[in-house]
């Protein structure tokens, strides 16, 4: 899937790459048979990306609808939030949706890292 996201500004790029305060963390667990559901949370988009990276032994546990809201309010990235909402609105299945969000977040992180790197030169 191609995600056409406009280039983020430098301030937004910094927010995209930074963790949010603990109080704004987003709950995200993992189903790991036979251990069970392991609770946890994510505090940044880089962490979210790692969390969603496909893994043959387990499944990520995340509320994708609520995630879009968190990305918009806590991270401050309205455009990525809309992209996630679009994925949820055209849901295929939960795992596929997680993969599409993973790709979208990856695209956004690459953009943000590129902007920061460019401006540092």
């Amino acid at each position, binding site marked *: 899937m191609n995600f056409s996201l406009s280039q983020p500004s430098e301030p937004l790029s910094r927010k995209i790459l930074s963790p949010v305060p603990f109080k704004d963390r987003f*709950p995200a*667990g993992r189903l790991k048979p*036979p*251990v069970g559901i392991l609770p946890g949370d994510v*505090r940044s988009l880089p962490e979210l990306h*790692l969390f969603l990276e496909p893994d043959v032994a387990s499944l990520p*546990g995340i*509320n994708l609808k609520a995630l879009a809201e968190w990305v918009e309010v806590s991270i401050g990235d309205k455009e990525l939030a809309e992209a996630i909402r679009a994925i949820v609105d055209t849901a295929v299945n939960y795992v596929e949706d997680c993969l599409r969000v993973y790709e979208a977040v990856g695209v956004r992180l690459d953009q943000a890292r590129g902007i920061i790197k460019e401006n540092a030169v």
Partner: protein
Amino acid sequence: MTLYGYAGKILRLDMTHRKAIAIDTEPYRRWGGGHGMGAALFWDYCKDKTITDGRHPANVCCVMTSPLCGTIVPSAGGRCEVVGVGVGQYPVSWFTRTNFGGRFSTMLKYAGWDGIVIEGRSDSPVWVDIRDGQVIFHDAQDLWGKDTWATQLEIRDLIKIRRGTKTHWRDLQALPLAKSDDPPGEDFGRTTQKPAILCIGPAGEHQTCHAALIHDAGNGAGQGGLGAVWGSKNLKAISVLGTGGIQVHDPKALLRARMITKEKYVTRWQAPDFQAWTRIGRLPNPIIQAAPPTDERRPQSCQGCINGCRSRYNVGYGNESACQETFWYGPYVRKVAKSRAEDTEINLKGADIVQKYGLNSFVLQPGLHWLEHLYEDGVLGPGRPIPSDLPWESIGTLDFAEKIVRALSTRTDIGADLADGWVQAALKWGREEDLHTGALQFSYWGVPEHGYDPRAELEWGYGSLMGDRDTNTHCFNYIFTNVSAAFAFGKPLRIGAEEMVNLHAKKMSPYAKDRPEVLDYSDANMYSEAVAQIVRWQQHYCRFYKNSALYCDLKWPDFVNTNVPDLEGATASPDAGEQVFWNAVTGDTLRFEDGIEIGRRIWNLDNAIWVLQGRHRDMVHFAPYIYKTVYNKGEVFPFFMWTCRDDDGKWHYKDLMGRSMDKAKFEEWKTIFYRLEGWDTKTGWPKRSTLEQMDMGFVADALQAAGRLGEEAS
């Protein structure tokens, strides 16, 4: 008379006088092996069964094998059961159990012993060296303070066992440290094997509640704090070398059943079904909870297992660790890891750390989450109400992992308060509210919730509470994982809900035979007699087949099996069921339900010990948050699918997120459960009639003498 499958002797270690005493196995034969035998030995040799702290010198710790250990019974030959009064539970540390795999139980059998009974307390650290019939107590001052891996290497060096894989025949008698003035009464054998060593690390030496027993690199007996019991007895390690064998009653029948398992129940490796719904029949698969560090791995398994759920890697870390310990640190690691490879490396090195310290990482699964919240809320940390100088700002790093494990293992920093129990520490810190809000998710008996919430996964939660610890018995919860995974991937269900419950009910003899309603997890059924029957069945099944015969929890029972045309799993089957293997090895003529009955007897003996320790039904309740909050893990996993009947009696897989538990109704359920067990419904104490029906009048006598026998009229 030959005791087929048994070695015939049990070793008593009198730690106080450093004496080894051999007793016959035969009087304990009726208890099967493992847990049953261990509980019976505890009953006979623990002179004060009112103790509620495993570190008391009167405590007796039994390390037990089964007749199946060291044989080729699939996924049963390598487990080892440990029992005794535990450490750090709340409000009472019960007589409890733990279990580990590897090759220790096999080697113990080959050395001629069915189990070890550890009594008393040595006045200084010792390690015990068992070579066939010879048992030597060695001073362990030089080992004390060493981690579990260093301890095992040191013992191998002390008895001149060559490192690496190039080995050669050695005469046991010629190995150093044998007492020249104490010649063995039998011919010694020769071996190419390395000793099997079970030991404690710093966590056990400091007698902390989260102390485990560790064998080889990654086999751990964690729950119950039995490592602290060894520490209290000044027992650093037991090393075993055996050169004997095990007499199997009917080798042909054993091989036949093993081949049927392979040909009929296990997926074909030539055309593997990776999504098979079965337990015994899945492909060998490492149970690592992080991404594999490399493809360069060799499978490693317990003796006789057909799975091989552990690995050895060429990268040199994470070896032999599996399951929970490979992810105890996971949610924090991803906060600092820059890549999946780094995430794996920190997680697996974190596993190595807990193995070396001999620490049960299970407490950290919900425990570290709680501590992190206390830190982030400004409650815990340098100069805060709960002082801690650990580098909390670097949680997720390997450095922090080592520091917190060291603190918990050595009673330093917050480890000083947590060493005697996590709930006890919460109360000491004035954090009782966390037991009510669920900030500290230790659901029952002061031990952590497993990942299967009692409000949703009823047989797990109820069974844990009616028992002595987190039950950690995965008899049914693959229903949830298989079905939830199918939903997540949008794949068709391999077995529909109605067929699923009917297949189970076929095999759940005697209490739930042809009663699919026992698997109705709906709100309307959660306090029912049917649910009491599934809890009973699971406890009795496990007490014999899993904890005593020592079938692996992760492979048995096998109720359903999509590798078989009729979908019926191996459990209780006439061709390769649990009882078939038992009978082939022992020569018994056990029916499947006879094993359940032995399990019921063992369960009743356990309950009698708990009653002598002070148990009363009024103490039997979940942590307050279970009743006061709803099960809301929907925010960390989208569904929790279980078999449920609707109002029309039709079966569905239904999401149980958002459920709560009614305390009054649960109290009514307890009454049903006690009545079915033949226990006094007012107290939960066993009745004489129940015990005598199982030929356990001696238990009734002891309870009566203690004034704790249930009333018949109840």
